[in-house]
């Protein structure tokens, strides 16, 4: 998996026999036990582990829900109500799954913004970053289709509005939409295929996660200084240090998760989704789940159907292009005084877009959404390329160790040459 020479030595006869046939234990050892971790990582680096936990949690609760759920438009709503009222602990499974999706997105947004702040997308981590963007896209598709399954009013109209986005595509748009629907409007065939895909996509996510971690273990982790590991003294072994820290952070996150599930399980949902789907009436305010709101605000900010769809897709394309849009050779915003300010402005714009996405599209809200949308793209297309040319970064520390201890020395661990393949930055 990684290029680190494994230090694993099988002890028992069975372990030797097995290792010479399939070196699985050696792989796990080099990736999760001996793997060199920068010694200055903060809790922002625990969200990867939290995300893996959340994916597993969604799969487990989802499979259990699927044992009771019926993907048929006349029965779906009833079956979800039956899960809530009749199935033993069904309410718990459903609240875990529904709130779990939100927790998954909270974690992924922290994870992405961590990367944007510390320049984790820069060489040699471009492929790692792109795999992350693919995971994000798959997550959005999965969550969207999951939200359709309870077949309430928001499910139905959310599905209608989002699938209709494709009708903006010139020439083939209407054909694509009818292939998505399997009919002339959102209906039973749509629900059926969405369930099949909602079951499938999380496993595809799991596959891409394996590639993501593989890429990570080839190039090594970034860290708050952005300076690569230069000697063994900059690193500590994954186990026990990262293992225990990741576990601790995950448990704290689970407590946060549990607070939503047990105290405000419907806060992040919409009351309208407890009304069965009615194709003759659209709810007065249709808004997507909170994690889609910034993109929804961008869609509505453009007063043209195709233009709105292009802007919304473009907002995600920006993320994929960021490794090449950012021209600065310094990774971490800690050493980039200007970028640091623009970064926080960008965060504020994203949060503001999210808030605007939940408001009706009228008057001042529309103007504000347009200004924020413009800033979103200016940040990526103008500020990132230009800053790298005009900004004077602060001097970088000589090594990770220096920033941690303020001196040279300390216990060393062996690191493979591959942990620091980059000389850039």
């Amino acid at each position: 998996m990684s290029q680190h020479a494994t230090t694993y030595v099988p002890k028992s006869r069975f372990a030797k026999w097995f290792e010479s046939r399939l070196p699985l234990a050696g792989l796990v050892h080099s990736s999760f036990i001996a793997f060199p971790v920068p010694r200055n990582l903060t809790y922002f680096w625990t969200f990867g582990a939290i995300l893996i936990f959340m994916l597993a949690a969604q799969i487990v609760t989802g499979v259990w829900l699927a044992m009771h759920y019926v993907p048929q438009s006349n029965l779906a709503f009833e079956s979800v109500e039956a899960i809530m009222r009749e199935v033993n602990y069904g309410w718990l499974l459903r609240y875990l799954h529904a709130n779990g999706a939100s927790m998954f997105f909270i974690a992924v947004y922290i994870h992405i913004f961590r990367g944007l702040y510390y320049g984790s997308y820069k060489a040699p981590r471009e492929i790692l970053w792109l795999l992350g963007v693919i995971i994000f896209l798959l997550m959005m598709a999965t969550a969207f289709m999951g939200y359709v399954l309870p077949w309430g009013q928001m499910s139905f109209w959310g599905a209608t509005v989002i699938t209709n986005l494709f009708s903006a595509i010139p020439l083939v748009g209407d054909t694509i939409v009818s292939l998505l629907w399997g009919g002339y409007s959102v209906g039973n065939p749509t629900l059926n295929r969405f369930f099949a895909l909602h079951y499938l996509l999380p496993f595809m996510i799991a596959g891409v996660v394996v590639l993501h971690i593989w890429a990570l273990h080839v190039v090594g982790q970034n860290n708050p200084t952005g300076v690569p590991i230069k000697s063994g003294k900059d690193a500590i072994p994954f186990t026990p240090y990262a293992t225990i820290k990741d576990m601790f952070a995950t448990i704290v996150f689970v407590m946060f998760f549990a607070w939503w599930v047990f105290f405000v399980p419907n806060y992040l949902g919409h009351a309208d989704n407890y009304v069965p789907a009615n194709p003759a009436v659209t709810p007065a305010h249709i808004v997507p789940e909170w994690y889609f709101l910034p993109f929804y605000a961008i869609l509505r900010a453009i007063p043209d159907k195709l233009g709105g769809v292009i802007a919304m897709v473009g907002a995600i394309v920006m993320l994929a292009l960021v490794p090449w849009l950012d021209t600065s050779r310094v990774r971490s915003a800690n050493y980039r005084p200007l970028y640091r300010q623009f970064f926080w402005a960008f965060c504020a714009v994203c949060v503001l877009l999210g808030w605007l996405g939940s408001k009706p599209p009228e008057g001042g809200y529309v103007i504000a959404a347009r200004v924020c949308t413009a800033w979103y793209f200016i940040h990526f297309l103008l500020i990132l390329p230009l800053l790298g040319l005009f900004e004077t970064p602060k001097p970088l520390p000589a090594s990770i160790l220096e920033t941690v201890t303020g001196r040279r020395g300390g216990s060393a661990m062996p690191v493979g040459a591959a942990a620091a393949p980059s000389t850039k930055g």
Partner: protein
Amino acid sequence: MAAITATGQTKATRRDFMLIATGAAGAVGAAAIVWPFVASMAPDAFVIAAGAPVDVDLAPVADGQIVKVFWRGKLVFVRNRTPKEIEEAEKVNLASLPDPQPDSARVKEGKAKWLVVFGNCTHLGCVPLGHEGTYEGWFCPCHGSVYDTSGRVRGGPAPLNLPIPPYTFVSDTKIRIGEESKVPPKAAAA
């Protein structure tokens, strides 16, 4: 993969033939098997059969009333327009419309009272609210598209007028949606 002979010239071998033949068969086979997978996602025979024409009795529809019916799973508005609504729909300056169409092209000849249109906003498919918005035609609550009493878009992000389903008058008080009338609407020919 052509073998290089002693003289340095390339010569097609039997392996080259195998490569091209296998590759061609594989490509044709792959294309042929993709088609059924894509086609299976299209509306199936049941869904199409459910598109049989539906009859709507107009007698109980009061002046100014809009009724909602379904054809092929799609919502259809049948609107009994008042003389004032008809007049407003007819006296519009066509050049000012995003999707210019005279009112006469949107109703059957001699039946200007009855407007029959699909009931999903041409923006992203929400159901617009009747008798609302600037022109008191329809107003879409989702992203603010405005339609007039002819179902034509007059503002907002919707690009097109509410489309007209195929329908015909089987009697003075009954229409059949899903079957086109033999006589084309007057102005459509113009």
